[in-house]
């Protein structure tokens, strides 16, 4: 094992393979920065070049992309309040308020350092856990996965501030919007009519861009001026952010581990990971008054989990050939091109390749963070430029990001529709994250509920895993209600932060 570990490092040091890894990181950073484009897009771009490449170089290229995206997608989330890819939605919650306070560089510094440490923990966990990951993956059957979706829904309370009713309403709307399209367990298409575009349901990218990007752009333009409201200069630079992250090292480690574990459970999808981690950090911190207002911990938690999860999603991908995320499905396709069948035997037959993947993951995180840190100073200056100079570019990028989903005219129609919905919600003080979470979990909850019933009738309710996760969800809800009653302080703070954003004309 140790032999292969060291051997793989030397394999990766080959100049061409290192070049490929670098190219992957560069592509990953580019697609990460552009809102709406993610690792999936980056990998699809390079897929044609894989034919004829050796497996190690090809894997280095793909992992380079996968590892760099969750670092780079922080830029638009923090600087503009626009999700850079589905993995950094929650970073908006505190990162964007920091940028508006003129602390963009600090938020980015903290985020990238957290990303780096998270990514390395992910790689470490993958190498340590690879021999033992099977029981973890096998422990989650359909009933347990259903309970996990309920656990995900229970964090909605945390994200709704002192407006739990509005939050629930938004979540229910999200659940309903998530039912559009092909039903998960029946050959039936809902609310689609003869409009084939809707057969697949609505795309997460379009919903997220519409809800968060368009309203922000409209309001910034209406207000005039730059994104950063207080021109403090770049005094609060990225070194402050790096120090922030190092000061909260236990937080980084805890959320990296959570990221790895949730990532490793196949069937949950990785787009919920950042929200879960944000919910946890906002719920468990002692002083919670500044969450939603620009608390650096609200950036550190999702960002460390976000990079660590790549180590997690690789576990089912490599051990079972079951893609842990859509980008990993692409990696599986690539492995097939190289004639490598993922599965338990990879650990004996292709151990070198497994460790090349792990090393690529670690090195790509280091390169990626380094490049992002270098870029963060010049890019953070954008927040001090009058917004009407950059708005046209951002609008074009957002539209292209939505358009590449299926290149159907309806992509743009729904982008506009959700933009309008998001703007109305923002104006009326209805929190938007619960809608997004309801949308993400809708199909999963329905799928696993029916599967549990079909498999076990009602006996599934008594399974120990189901009861444990159920108790956890109840505890989370009760705790959030009780803590809220005791300290209305935090709620007020969130409200202030939101109205802060909204009240400024």
């Amino acid at each position, binding site marked *: 094992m140790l032999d292969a570990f060291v051997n793989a490092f030397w394999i990766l040091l080959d100049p061409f393979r290192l070049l490929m890894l670098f190219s992957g990181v560069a592509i990953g950073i580019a697609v990460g920065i552009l809102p709406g484009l993610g690792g999936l897009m980056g*990998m699809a771009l390079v897929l044609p070049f894989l034919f004829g490449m050796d497996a190690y170089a090809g894997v280095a290229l793909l992992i380079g992309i996968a590892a760099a995206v969750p670092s780079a997608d922080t830029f638009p989330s923090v600087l503009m309040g626009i999700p850079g890819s589905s993995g950094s939605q929650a970073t908006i919650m505190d990162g964007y308020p920091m940028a508006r306070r003129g602390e963009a560089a600090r938020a980015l510094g903290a985020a990238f350092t957290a990303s780096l440490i998270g990514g390395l923990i992910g790689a470490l966990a993958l190498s340590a856990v690879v021999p033992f990951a099977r029981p973890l993956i096998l422990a989650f*059957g359909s009933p347990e996965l259903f309970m996990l979706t309920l656990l995900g829904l229970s964090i909605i309370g945390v994200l709704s501030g002192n407006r739990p009713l509005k939050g629930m309403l938004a979540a229910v709307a999200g659940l309903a919007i998530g039912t559009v399209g092909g039903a998960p*367990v029946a050959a039936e298409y809902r609310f689609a009519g003869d409009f084939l575009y809707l057969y*697949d349901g609505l795309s997460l990218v379009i919903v997220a861009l519409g809800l968060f990007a368009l309203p922000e752009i409209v309001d910034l333009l209406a207000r005039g001026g730059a994104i950063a409201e207080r021109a403090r200069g770049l005094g609060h630079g990225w070194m402050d952010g790096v120090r922030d992250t190092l000061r909260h090292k236990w937080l980084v480690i805890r959320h990296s581990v959570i990221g790895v574990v949730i990532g490793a459970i196949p069937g949950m999808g990785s787009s919920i990971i950042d929200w879960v981690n944000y919910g946890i950090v906002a719920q468990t911190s002692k002083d919670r008054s500044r969450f939603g207002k620009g608390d650096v911990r609200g950036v550190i938690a999702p960002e460390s989990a976000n990079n660590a999860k790549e180590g997690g999603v690789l576990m089912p991908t490599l051990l079972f*050939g*079951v893609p842990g995320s859509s980008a990993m*499905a692409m990696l599986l*396709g690539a492995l097939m091109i190289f004639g490598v069948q993922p599965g338990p035997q990879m650990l004996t037959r292709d151990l070198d390749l497994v460790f090349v993947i792990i090393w690529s993951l670690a090195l790509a995180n280091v390169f990626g963070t380094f490049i992002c840190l270098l870029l963060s100073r010049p890019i953070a200056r954008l927040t001090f430029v009058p917004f009407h100079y950059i708005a046209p570019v951002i609008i074009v990028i957002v539209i292209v990001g939505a358009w590449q989903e*299926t290149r159907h005219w309806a992509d743009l129609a729904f982008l506009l529709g959700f933009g309008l919905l998001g703007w109305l919600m923002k104006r009326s003080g209805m929190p938007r994250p619960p809608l997004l979470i309801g949308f993400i979990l809708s199909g999963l909850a329905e799928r696993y509920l029916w599967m549990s019933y079909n498999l076990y009738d009602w006996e599934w309710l008594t399974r120990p895993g189901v009861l444990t996760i159920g108790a956890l969800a109840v505890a989370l809800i009760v705790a959030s209600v009780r803590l809220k009653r005791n300290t209305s302080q935090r709620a007020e703070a969130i409200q202030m932060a939101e109205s802060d954003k909204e009240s400024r004309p």
Partner: protein
Amino acid sequence: MPRTTYNKMAAIATGLVLGASVMLPAAHADDYYAGQTIRMIIPFSPGGGTDTFGRLISQHLGRHIPGSPTIVAENVTGAGGLLGSNEFAERVDHDGLTLMTASGHLNLRAFLGLQGLRLDLDALEPVVAAPMGHVTAISTQAGIDDPADLLEAQGRLTKGITDPVGLLESLVALEMFELNYRAVPGYGGRGDTRIAFERGELMINTQSTPAYLNSVQPLVDEGMAMPLYAIGFIDGEGNPQRDPAVPDMITAPELYEQIHGEMPSGTIWEAFKVTVPLVQNTRGTVWVHGDIPDEAMAALREGVEAMVNDPEFQEASASILEGYEIMWGDDLGQIKASMDAASPEVLDYLRDMLNERFGTEFN
């Protein structure tokens, strides 16, 4: 003498004319694709098995077609392949400049007339295809240790369903045995059913043969599962054939014969014989519109023949085909022959089964 000379001259002239006329289609074909770009529609997202096959062909076919056109693969995704297929069916010119890579599942959907799909396979011609066999295994929890005891299997015989139409060949096989199984729809892919099978959630599992060898065989070795049968292939005369990737494994019709003492018969057997050749091209079938100009069709056929004989292609395709031979030329006839052989009763039987069990709607 002058006369003979004349005759000779005439003969030579005739020969030249004949030669030229023989050369003519080739020259035309050469002209047809020279400097052109062929678009290859792949109605699935990048990275899957069908996509990989489509991209392999896009990469190699172009330079073998006279005139060396460029082939550009394009993933037109959405609605489980419906958007891309409908675009190919209705919105492209029938000039041979657009091809489509379909999966076996998509072929079957089109054949059965799934609601929303407007692809008519009768109007298309297969250009090249790649087959893929499947193996069904059962968990040892079912309490049997010989495939011949299949009908005595105990417990909830759960079978994971990803997409009922896509799994039709394995469902028809189970129906053929009249096994009382419980279908559980909702699984994301065959890989997910494989995990659920190892977890003990599913008792019956069908995988593509390479995936079986790679990920289910280890469970068999650990004593957690037992292979039941390979779906196998059907030859030109309608007889079962062993799966070349697992030649020692009994096929479903053979197992039926072993249990019942006679080969399966009736509508279900006809349904099996129709379904298997259509769906076992799971890896991919490249289609072109049947009414493209003759010289374009000739150039495509010529290109495919040159491609499959090119050592570079053979080397590149070996790992992707996973032990199966590429289908081209006359062999492709099987795909259409199996569709032509299907009687209306067989079609109704298959549609009714899918509709009753899963609520699938057809046109």
